């Protein structure tokens, strides 16, 4: 029936955005749980974190999940850019006076900018930790595992002259993530048509909670690591 086919339709692009976004929310939860081990003090913490990092980079099922995550990021970014370009084209001449704050939340109007901040953070984050873990140079701990714990401690400690800046950048990116999630989480459900007078208020509250708690916990880690090494 459909002339243009589902994959090229504007709605399908939104389905892709929603599904990849929700998948990435699950990823965030998993990543956060792992990272929280950095709060465990001393050698015990180092061991736990390195074992976790080893598991995450070697266990086949997790590897499969990681490829899915890369794909989700790619789809989310490419689709997001395509949607943004199309949306710009839909209004070639802008308003002289436009009062966006009168009818829509700030985060909903700035998803592209927030997403770009997150993407820039992601590239630097992967270079600092993911790349080090996979390609080094990296030392080994007493159990013979790659010592990612030491890499993290060094990055946010006095050995790194720019540690303060790194912490600030990390926290800023988490703010962007928070606002992105506050709109994105509930927006994903709407795009998939999952709206109901009974459940939607719950989804909205869950999204708000997710968008505040997850980034706050992520941000607390570098702040803590920086502080204890002062």
């Amino acid at each position: 029936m459909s002339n243009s086919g589902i994959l090229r339709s504007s709605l399908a692009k939104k389905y892709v955005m929603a599904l990849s976004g929700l998948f990435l929310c699950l990823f965030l939860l998993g990543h956060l749980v792992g990272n929280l081990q950095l709060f465990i003090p001393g050698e015990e913490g180092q061991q736990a974190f390195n074992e976790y990092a080893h598991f995450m980079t070697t266990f086949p099922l997790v590897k499969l999940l990681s490829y899915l995550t890369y794909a989700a990021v790619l789809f989310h970014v490419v689709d997001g850019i395509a949607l943004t370009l199309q949306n710009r084209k839909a209004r070639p001449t802008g308003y002289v006076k436009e009062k966006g704050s009168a009818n829509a939340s700030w985060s909903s109007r700035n998803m592209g900018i927030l997403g770009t901040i997150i993407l820039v953070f992601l590239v630097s984050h992967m270079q600092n930790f993911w790349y080090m873990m996979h390609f080094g140079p990296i030392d080994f701990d007493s159990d013979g595992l790659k010592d990612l714990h030491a890499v993290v401690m060094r990055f946010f400690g006095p050995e790194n002259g720019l540690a303060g800046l790194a912490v600030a950048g990390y926290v800023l990116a988490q703010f962007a993530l928070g606002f992105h999630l506050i709109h994105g989480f509930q927006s994903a459900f709407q795009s998939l048509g999952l709206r109901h007078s009974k459940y939607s208020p719950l989804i909205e509250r869950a999204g708000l909670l997710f968008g505040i708690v997850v980034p706050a916990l992520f941000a607390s880690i570098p702040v803590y690591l920086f502080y204890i090494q002062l």
Partner: protein
Amino acid sequence: MNLTLKVWRQNGPEAKGHMDTHALEGVSPDMSFLEMMDMLNDQIIRAGGEPIAFDHDCREGICGMCSMFINGEAHGPGRGVTTCQLHMRSFKDGDTIAIEPWRAKAFPVIKDLTVDRSAFDRIIQAGGYISVNTSGKTMDANAIPIPKQDADEAFSSATCIGCGACVASCKNASAMLFVSAKVSQFALLPQGQPERETRVQRMVDQMDKEGFGNCTNTGACAVECPKGIDLSNIARMNRDFMSASVKSKK
């Protein structure tokens, strides 16, 4: 009231437009916004100028013709009102008011504040109807039992007057609220079921072809809608389109 009005003037579809400034004195706060525009045009004509072209018809909020983007908002600062239902008491003496046409690629400017909204008509023509037997044996609609809640919801969707404020307000110039209201008014009723799937596919296809933007769920459309059409319509269309696309043979 004395006002400073900044109005978009554009001679034709291809012409370059600009904001013109006019001073208007002695405006009554009881005037509707369109009466104020009439007063301004009267002043312009008396001074030998070309009056401002703007769309209007019923002037009681049911036809959907009036279409001004006033001080950064579709139909101005009021909620649940069209431009004709907006009164000058919503402004203060000495205010500067910016008046622009709806802006969207799919709504090209014809002249000044008038835009071509026939894209909406083409979307309706693509599927926004039900095919009924008119041979004289048409079933009495009242003979079909419909739950009150469904009837009310369908009626709410059907109150859309197609003014285009949703497109004008959306930062992406998306027509999702309009199209979803027109899809929903039938999707909620038994008479709409036979064509439910083809309807949503055809209307979404046409919407995309017209060059409207994509919905990013900012919700601006529903806030500015003079008829209070809500976002549950868009969710319903998202749902219907997905199921229709998965099930369709092509």
